[in-house]
């Protein structure tokens, strides 16, 4: 039996749909772990990202730091924390939050930074308070990128919780680590399929959300042609006189 038909059979086997360690149970656990991770990461990263994007302060520290966080091997971090803190959800949770922070942070500050300085400037000049500029101008315009950051963090978190199941944990990664020592391809592949499906469904939902949160006016202004612009001279502002500094 090739691994794929085996995996399908494994997935369809009613025995795997009830009881302890069943697919619904592992799936629920996995989603729960991911949700907790993301909520914590967002609580930390979004305000920080907005602050950096809005003020431009701290960028020089935070950008290389998040780069370094990306280099941190999650498996190592999970294990280190597990040796430190013992069994339970907390060690991998910390490691996964650390993993989720960089993309969310980057999305938030890149989003705010991507707002045209002219727009921001004009908003201030017309009498928006600093808070007003942030909440009514920058955040709405940054929302697609903010959601983009959360989206990419979510995908990473979904994938990495499976790796973290090296520790005694639930979640879909269980199927991988349980199948691995006995080379139960059906179980491992079945589990992988579940993870991938979960990731794709979530990704699809995010794609919809991202479209939904993109301000209509921004869509209207977007260049539709994906090819390289060959008419760029036309789109460029008419610098009839001297160029703006």
């Amino acid at each position, binding site marked *: 039996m090739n691994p794929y038909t085996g995996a399908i059979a494994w997935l369809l086997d009613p025995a795997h749909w009830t009881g302890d360690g069943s697919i619904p149970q592992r799936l629920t656990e996995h989603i729960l772990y991911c949700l907790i991770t993301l909520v914590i990461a967002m609580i930390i990263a979004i305000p920080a990202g907005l602050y950096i994007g809005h003020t431009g302060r701290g960028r020089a520290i935070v950008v290389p730091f998040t780069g370094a966080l990306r280099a941190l091997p999650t498996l190592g971090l999970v294990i280190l924390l597990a040796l430190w803190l013992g069994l339970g959800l907390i060690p991998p949770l910390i490691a996964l939050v650390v993993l989720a922070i960089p993309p969310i942070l980057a999305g938030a500050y890149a989003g705010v930074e991507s707002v045209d300085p002219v*727009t921001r400037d004009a*908003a*201030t*000049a017309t009498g928006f308070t600093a808070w007003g500029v942030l909440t009514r101008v920058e955040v*709405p*315009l940054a929302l697609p990128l903010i959601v983009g950051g959360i989206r990419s963090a979510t995908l990473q978190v979904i994938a990495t919780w499976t790796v973290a199941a090296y520790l005694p944990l639930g979640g879909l990664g269980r199927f991988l680590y349980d199948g691995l020592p006995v080379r139960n391809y059906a179980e491992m592949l079945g589990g992988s399929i579940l993870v991938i499906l979960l990731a794709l469904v979530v990704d699809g939902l995010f794609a919809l959300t991202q479209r939904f949160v993109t*301000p*209509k006016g921004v869509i209207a202004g977007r260049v539709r042609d994906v090819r390289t612009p060959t008419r760029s001279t036309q789109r460029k502002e008419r610098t*009839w006189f001297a*160029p703006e500094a």
Partner: protein
Amino acid sequence: MIEFRAVTKRFPDGTLAVTDLDLIIPPHQVTVFVGSSGSGKTTILRMINRMVDPTSGSVLIDDVDIATLEPVALRRSIGYVMQNSGLLPHRTVIDNIATVPLLDGVKRAEAHKRAYELMDVVGLERSLATRYPAQLSGGQQQRVGVARGLAADPNILLMDEPFGAVDPLVRAELQVELQRLQRELGKTVVFVTHDIDEAFLIGDQVVLFKPGGILAQAGPPAELLQHPADDFVTSFIDAGRPRSILR
């Protein structure tokens, strides 16, 4: 009346953008700042609504030092129009025009009513009200910008190269329109441009700056033309004038 008293501005990076400026901008007239790129026009204009604060010296509006005023409130009381309009891309035309009244807590329906009237004033079709800025032409965007500047019925209107980014034909049209508006409304207008022709066309008073925000000459157009203060003024005016031997 707007008054600059010994105003100097040095940016944190050391750039000296405005040097010891004394200037009086008379009310209910159009004062045009002109000068080449980087001569400090924008910086000086922005001192009037405290987008920039002077390093030393003071700016007074109707004899009140604006350093004592709350910036946000001050800005809402002064109209500001800029090149590329600076409209909020995620708000419709009508909401953009009504920005300041809405910020001031005016009811939506009322703010929109006034905004529709302003669309008439600046010559915009009311049918454009629900479009987004990106769906308008450059000239239309500038009109929206002017309407927004007028929405709070300010006494002072600051315009920073408002027509710098539009087609020459449209530009000529907008210049005419601005002159009509000004006849009707009689605001204190401070207008920044690169274009000496434009300055002479619409300015009651023209202020020419040298690099470093140094005042070269200020006065009615005729005075600058007939009695240029120095060679800089002469050469600046000449560079902007028609050079074709045919005229």
